[in-house]
């Protein structure tokens, strides 16, 4: 293993505003891969760390289109091509009757796509993560806010990173082993 022996440096803060300020400070100092952890979604923090949520909506749309088009095609194929039944000369391609199922599976396809896109883009499920080794990190799901400067960040160097975080007066500063 030639990778870094350290995952990064982790600092703990007591408020959402302190975390936002710290994340902004780190970004201003050139850290592009800043990770900010909070027990709930903080408005505006995603812009500070540079979150990219651009793919979810198009993938959701794609899921909906695939679901809808597939279901309509299936009904058309079954009713017109594979098993046509002539009932009093009524049209085989009776499209209004095909709409309910098409609508439902459009929604289903879009919803499944939205959830899968969210999980896959977030790299979940991922049951193990180096941060879980830090005992205090479990407060990230309760009442504390954490900023992590990962070692894989191009500008990361242990000394300056530590100085930067200490300058923000965190409650706690931990080195996260890889």
């Amino acid at each position, binding site marked *: 293993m030639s990778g870094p022996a350290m995952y990064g440096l982790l600092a703990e803060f007591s408020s959402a505003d302190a975390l936002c300020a710290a994340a902004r400070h780190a970004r201003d100092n050139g850290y592009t891969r800043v990770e900010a952890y909070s027990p709930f979604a*903080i408005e505006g923090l995603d812009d500070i760390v540079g979150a990219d949520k651009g793919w*979810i909506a198009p993938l959701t749309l794609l899921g909906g289109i695939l679901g809808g088009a597939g279901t309509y095609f299936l009904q058309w194929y079954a009713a017109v091509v594979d098993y046509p039944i002539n009932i009093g000369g009524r049209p085989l391609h009776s499209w209004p009757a*095909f709409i*309910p199922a098409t609508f439902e*599976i459009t929604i*289903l396809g879009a*919803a499944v796509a939205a959830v899968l896109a969210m999980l896959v883009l977030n790299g*979940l499920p991922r049951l193990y*993560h180096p941060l879980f080794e830090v005992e205090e990190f479990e407060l990230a799901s309760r009442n504390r806010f954490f900023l992590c400067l990962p070692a894989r960040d191009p500008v990361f160097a242990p000394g300056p990173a530590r100085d930067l975080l200490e300058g923000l007066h965190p409650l706690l500063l931990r080195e996260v082993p890889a």
Partner: protein
Amino acid sequence: MSTPENADVLRPGWGYASVTDKIAGIVLTGHFGWRWWTAFLVASAGVCALLAAVSWLLVKGIGIWGVDMPVAWGFAIGNFVWWIGIGHAGTFISAVLLLLRQKWRTSINRFAEAMTLFAAGIAGLFPILHLGRPWFFYWLVPYPNVMNVWPQWRSPLVWDFFAIATYLTVSLLFWYVGLIPDLATLRDRAGQRGQRKSQVAYGLLALGWRGEARHWARYEWAYLLLAGLATPLVVSVHTIVSLDFAVGNTPGYHSTIFPPYFVAGALFSGFAMVLTLAIPLRAAFGLQDFITARHLANAAKVLLATCWLVSYGYLAEIFTSFYSGDIYERYMTINRFTGPYGPVYLAMLACNVLVPQLFWFRRVRHSAALLFVLSLVINCGMWMERFLIVVTSLHRDYLPSAWGMFYPTRWDWITLFGSIALFVWLFLLFVRFLPLISIAEMRELVRESAKGEA
């Protein structure tokens, strides 16, 4: 309204940590007390009765129920419509109120979604049991098969299958996605309490959620999209259920008012069930600070509004039948008042139209005990409505020689009450193992409330 913005949705004095520990504590505490166990044992007995009734049904066939010609749809279909209606409020609260930015949804959406999931699941059982040969229910799924036949795409019953299956799946996804951050909280709380088994179980379900800002951004976006998708879905599901009736030409079924009337009835009964569940829950777990008088009063206002929508439906049905000039439609309406099921119809009008007028009074809206009683009255009223829609139209068909009556048998009653027991049983397990209020959203509310005071 001059008080801080959220003071009546979340009482002041709560912080991130205390909110988290309070709600997570309900689940992680090892003992649940004699009340939970008593309720669980009673519900389990009911579930056993349901299992017995269903087993006997599988052995003997649906002849054990009161259904026969001409009333071939009895309790099973009525129960189905009733349950699926109850299952509408959860998604409505979660999705529609989220899109409308109603803050008061936060503390009631989680258990309302659970209610939706259980009610829709139970609803789905009834048409399957009613199939006669329930083990062939998968024939409704379009799959390549050696029989070389396809589902009948022009049948509302097939649309219904797609609607219910989609609704169940999307409700489950919506609920689970909402749970992920809370499952992570439970994982970490269980770890700190040294509850190793719980930590592993919640850890697996939490999928490794860490609360990173990029994750939250995608999560919130996906959740919003799900809400946007669930909103038309809610409306479509009961619409399609109503088409099961409205597409047929039976007097009393064949009506264009049915789709909106069914959706309004669904919200009416669903919100009634939300109150039926919320009021005991907040008392049992001391959640009066989270589920406040404001929540109950708002639900009462929704009930009042949907009561009028439903009443409009009743009125439109009566008007249309006379306006149509069709003797069968007219007879059906008169028969509803004066026929053999007349007392049920009048009782239904009392429960669904008359009694909810009490919600005009502020004192009623702010009395938890009274709201609980009224919610039960509305639940009964809505069940009677579903029963009457199904049965009265069938028992007096076009030909007087084909007229008949429907009398429920003991198996009908056992199945109905057994399904209620199953619902209670599932709900008791839910409050035992999962947080019944969204912890992450409550923390957000804490932050917003603190901002409002600053």
